[in-house]
């Protein structure tokens, strides 16, 4: 469903991405600075690859040979930013309504109410983002993305701004939300436990180059081979940069 094969010259290395996925939750796993966020930004159309092709279903989002480069507004891509990027001057409801702009003005209100109910945000409707907790912000950001009805979800380190305790509390809900989504999702992460508990397929990215995707069990075996098992949990506990 999502096919991406592109290159982009960055300061320290060249990003070489090859992603081909049909459905489910896919993870791009790699260290900080490996080019994970840049990959998502290229798919979303926020950044422009030097050459290559990006297709979503039968729509071409980007094709350097044919000079196609759809703006982010036309890509049908939902992007969950690391710090959630909620609009600070709008209320929770305003933020969600901002994702509903393709609907006629009259329908937005009812749809926003519906989404707030679904994401348990009704009581927070008139709050500004600055008053929300990390988990609440994440729900608002997700509701806002679902409001725009994307075909693919791009999740950029969705738990990096939350503390470990809260993270494990949120993951089951997060997983449920992603599984209810009809399209596919790509989650960028440097946390092994996060990847293992949420994703079905994993592709490791190193210095900007993606390795072929493997199933989650193969990924776990690969990690255990590289790192002794007892170090695995220790490593992920201390890793919260």
């Amino acid at each position, binding site marked *: 469903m999502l096919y991406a094969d592109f290159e982009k010259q960055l300061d320290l290395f060249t990003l070489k991405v090859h992603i081909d996925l049909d459905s489910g939750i896919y993870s791009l796993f790699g260290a900080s600075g490996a080019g994970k966020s840049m990959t998502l930004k290229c798919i979303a*159309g926020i950044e422009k690859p030097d050459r290559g092709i990006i297709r979503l279903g039968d729509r071409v989002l980007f094709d350097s040979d044919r000079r196609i480069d759809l703006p982010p507004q036309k890509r049908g891509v939902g992007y969950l*930013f690391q710090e959630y*990027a909620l609009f600070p*001057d709008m209320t929770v409801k305003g933020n969600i309504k901002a994702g509903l*702009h393709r609907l006629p003005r009259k329908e937005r209100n009812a749809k926003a109410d519906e989404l707030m109910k679904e994401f348990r945000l009704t009581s927070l409707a008139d709050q500004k983002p600055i008053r929300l907790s990390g988990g609440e912000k994440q729900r608002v950001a997700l509701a*806002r993305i679902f409001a*725009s009805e994307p075909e693919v979800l791009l999740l950029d380190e969705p738990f990096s701004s939350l503390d470990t305790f809260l993270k494990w509390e949120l993951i089951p809900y997060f997983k449920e939300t992603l599984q209810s989504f009809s399209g596919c999702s790509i989650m960028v992460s440097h946390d092994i436990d996060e990847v293992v508990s949420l994703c079905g397929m994993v592709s490791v990215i190193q210095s900007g180059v993606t390795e072929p995707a493997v199933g989650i069990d193969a990924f776990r075996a690969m990690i255990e081979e590289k790192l002794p098992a007892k170090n695995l949990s220790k490593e992920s506990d201390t890793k919260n940069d």
Partner: protein
Amino acid sequence: MDLYPLLNSLRIAAISAVIVFFIGIAAAYYIAKCPRIVKGVLDVILTLPLVLPPTVVGYLLLLVLGPKRVIGSFFLESFNVKLTMQWWSAIFAVSVIVLPLMYRTARGAFENFDENLASAGRTLGLSNTYIFWRIRIPACKQGIIAGVVLSFARALGEYGATSMIAGYTPGKTATVSTAVYNLWRIGNDELALKWVLINIAISAVVLLCINLIEKPYGRRSK
């Protein structure tokens, strides 16, 4: 006491503040996107009026707007409008002098803007116009409001370029600042002092407003 200079100063300052609001914001937004060299050059040009003596700005303006100069003669011949020595001629002078204040404060505010907010808006399908007016400007409103008020305050006090391009005609082009000079020159110290006090009072109130605007937001963001 004839209050015309006060009225004239206020309207010149208000109109100029509105003009530089739009030009300053547009300049700050588009110049930030320019290639580095173009950016450097435009930045210097737009900031120059801040450091040049106002008389130099007035001279340069007369060089293009004067009745015998390019633009001035064009307007005189085509529309029979003289661009200098009108009350609104001062708007040209004041706007040029004040633009750097608005431009630089707006630029500072834009530089602190989190670009991810704009990117988020775009992936949600929002138009660039909507993102600009409903997300970027509100997020930068504190700096922008400060810029407008500061521009207004500075506009009220402009003397040099105004006196060159609009002159001093009582009841026509007189402003508070030109009135003070001309009243002092003819020895009417008493009236000059009144205008001085009025000027100080207004400027103090405006600066007080800036402080009141900045404080609550400053506290909230930290």
